């Protein structure tokens, strides 16, 4: 597999991380090396193996449907970048 600068830019775009051309080139070199390492996985035949998502084969525990949380918005908003009228402010959302 060969990555291109465009691939790097596309994934940076998906990840919402600004990246300039120089950084993209630099990143490409590093990622290419890492993906060469990752590609070594393909040598093993895993066609009959089930994927393993969790270290323990445990099932989801369920919470009772109860309200346990009180309003603490002032505390929670104390480290917010920009708040007005108890709302988190962001640049205009266009729908």
């Amino acid at each position, binding site marked *: 597999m060969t990555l291109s600068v465009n691939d790097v830019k596309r994934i940076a775009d998906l990840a919402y991380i600004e990246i300039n051309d120089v950084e993209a080139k630099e990143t490409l070199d590093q990622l290419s090396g890492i993906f060469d390492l990752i590609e070594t996985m393909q040598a093993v035949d895993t066609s009959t193996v089930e994927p393993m998502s969790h270290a323990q084969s445990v099932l989801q*525990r369920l919470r009772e*449907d109860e*309200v346990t949380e009180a309003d603490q918005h002032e505390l929670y908003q104390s480290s917010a970048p920009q708040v007005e009228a108890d709302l988190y402010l962001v*640049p205009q959302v266009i729908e």
Partner: protein
Amino acid sequence: MQWEIVIGLEVHAQLSTQSKIFSGASTAYGAPPNTQACVIDLALPGVLPVLNKGAVERAIKFGLSVGAKINSPSVFARKNYFYPDLPKGYQISQYELPVVQGGSIHIQADGVDKIIYLTRAHLEEDAGKSLHEDFHGMSGIDLNRAGTPLLEIVSEPDMRSSKEAVAYAKMLHGLVRWIGICDGNMQEGSFRCDANVSVRPHGTEKLGTRCEIKNLNSFRFLEKAIDYEARRQIEILEDGGTIRQETRLYDASKDETRTMRTKEDANDYRYFPDPDLLPLEISANWIEQVRSALPELPQARRDRYISEFGLSGYDASVLTSSRETADYFEATVRQLPAQAKLCANWIMGEISGQLNKEGQEITDCPITPSQLAMLLERIADGTISGKAAKTVFESMWSGELEKNVDAIIAAKGLKQISDESAIEKLVDQVLAANEQQVADYRNGKEKAFNSLVGLIMKAAQGKANPAQVNTILRNKLAG
């Protein structure tokens, strides 16, 4: 060319839990901004989700109600995208293994019965809201709604007209309320529809390119948006154009749909199983518990009303449009088993009309089923006329005389004269005083009969039993 419209619906039903799907914050509607957003809903660093049993139970209820398979295990996945109302930068949803698979809903549109099949229904969390009032050109984010449990119900592309789509949406809306998993409040966004619409030449198999119309928050908009969208697509195709797969937004003020985003800029959501949540297993035992606690479903009740009470299909459908209406009907008819049709007529007529006028629900009805049954019984036993019953009904509605039917009849002097001899006396008096009309009738003027009835009723101050008046009068004139 003849075109066929193909429609599939995706409905987001907010589940009526007390707390959120993955946190213990309240889901109550209308709280001040961000007062119901806890550390988990805010996606503070380090927080983790724990699944709400109430949300799962509601999903099971739904699955059983539509005859679907309850998947066990089902798996929660992350749908990754950035949006300010999505605090984690991903939505926890179900992707490859939804909790509910398959199922179907019976609808009637234009008098035809039809089955709409469901693809799946899965659990997921709702997002917050962006408010666009002007905060110096910025938007405000309220995360109270973030984490509210949703059941996304996806149908197969089985509908062929906007009317069928509306019939399906209404049936689903009725069902989720019936089984008590969603309050169905469309204004508050508790029940939201997206429609996938495509068209194809009649008689062909291959599906056309579809467009998804987002956030249709009323049945009327659903119908109009589909109609507009189908026309738009047909026009493009007839002009030799092609349909672009895209997401469109319905603008109710202009009655049109417009492009929201095209397939090209559609997100790559990078779904993967959420490592913070484990596979959800639902035991057969739990499913049976839920099943045994399920109410009789609308379809079953409808069938029973037809067979047990001899109601028409139409009446049975109207009465089973909501569980509350059906329960009201049953409570009434239980006390008046021989008068099912009369009960049905009054509930669909007077009661529903009055409620509509006042913008209220059957649960707000000031007249209880027993009170209504008492009133209808007085019609049935001839104590009052249907017309007088309406007067009594109005008095009851406004709470007069503690809604006591007999007291109102007495106070208003509405009791019918059903005594044979009393009516005969009245008839004799009228006949004696109106020889001309009697002669006219006997000379073949049928009109004179009605005029005599009118005079008798007038003499009885409207209280004589009209059927008896008719019979006695006819006998006397014949005699």
